[in-house]
């Protein structure tokens, strides 16, 4: 009952008292949003390579907000929103490739001169060249420091599948980046 009440609160009115406790039974949407958004933007940025990373993360959050009554009842609401974000980021990447070729978009934003440039942009560019599942697994593993079991739960696939994608992704990246491919201990 308390879970449902907390969920309802999120849609009714912003809560005056916000408890920043990640282990609380159910977060209000506001608490969930504040806690998860920065990492979600980072996740969208590395997957899409796009200045629209904030928009992608925001769309995933908006989707969660629309059905928060049910999302907040899930075992891992955050897995739901990360999966939504991963799928949107890949869609943006694909759509940009086939649809606009970078030049046409009136909405393509001028290079943001005040945004800090990513020193390791080359690494993420290589990640984006990986097959879809490999890039999602690599991004989840490193951006969120997620274990194989958590990635499997997030992407709704078997742990063995995640291990294979992770291993193949690392091997390809090592080859392309000229790094050693040894697995972490």
């Amino acid at each position, binding site marked *: 009952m308390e879970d449902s009440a907390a969920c309802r609160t999120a849609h009714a009115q912003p809560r005056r008292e916000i408890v920043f406790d990640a282990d609380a039974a159910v977060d209000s949407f506001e608490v969930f949003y504040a806690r998860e*958004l*920065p990492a979600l933007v*980072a996740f969208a940025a590395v997957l899409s390579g796009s200045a629209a990373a904030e928009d992608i993360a925001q769309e995933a*959050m908006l989707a969660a907000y629309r059905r928060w009554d049910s999302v907040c009842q899930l075992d891992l609401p955050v897995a739901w929103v990360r999966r939504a974000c991963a799928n949107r980021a890949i869609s943006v990447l694909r759509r940009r490739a086939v649809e606009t070729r970078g030049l046409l978009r009136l909405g393509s934003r001028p290079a943001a001169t005040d945004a800090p440039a990513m020193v390791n942009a080359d*690494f993420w560019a290589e990640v984006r060249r990986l097959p879809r599942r490999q890039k999602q697994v690599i991004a989840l*593993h*490193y*951006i969120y420091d997620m274990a194989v079991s958590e990635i499997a739960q997030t992407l709704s696939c078997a742990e063995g599948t995640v291990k294979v994608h992770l291993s193949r992704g690392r091997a390809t990246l090592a080859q392309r*980046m000229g790094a*050693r491919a040894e697995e972490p201990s």
Partner: protein
Amino acid sequence: MTIDELARTAAAEARGIAVETVDPSIMLAQLYRTRRNRSLASIVTIVVVAVAVAIGAFVARAGSGSNSAPAASQPSPPCAHVTCPKVHHVVLTVPVTFSLPNSFQNGFQQTSLNVVEVYRGDIDTTGVSVAENAIPVKDDYTWTRDPAAGTTAKSVATWLAHRPFLTNTALVPTHVGGLPAWRVSGQLKPGARLPALKDSVKVAPTFLNDIGHMAYAPNLIGDYTLVAVPGAGITVIWSWSLDHGARALAGNQAFIDRLSFR
């Protein structure tokens, strides 16, 4: 360095940048606003479709002849035998309403409060951008307003038709959504100077708005329809195509014909 170490360094950097640049409180307020606007847009879309269906039903009834005896009619769902195009209502500075011809991809991309873009489904890299509050720019690298263009749709259209980098230009009066408009077509002169950069590509600049640039390039062709929309300044309807001939643009007109502002 192992690939794992490299990946962890890169991830830490990406997270750090996001923490530095993202303000959840501002973005949460935006999220609520977006949700409100979309709900409103959905309601308006439903109302527009309902009105369209009602008018269609009324017209069909009137057309069936008032002299003949009323025949026993089979109730059929609206649009059972015809294609009912979905009407989109996009909340720009002044909202725009349109339906997409079959040759266009389903859906649209709203890139700011002033811009909505639609894309062709039958030809790659071809579409139409509707940009409200557009600014005509100088023929140089600065992307700054060219005062010579004037401030009316007609003066801006005339200015565009006389851009030094264009040839074979035509200026045609027309209407968009019931508003007087001017359509300018033309081709980039061979060897024309391309003084500006758009996404790192050399171009001849035409218009700017809050987040985007319009221009000509050797492989980027376009027609422009200029209309003064009350409340939205000079609005540019940019019909564009990359890597295709002028014939690709012809199919864009069907979209422009279905566009209205309100």
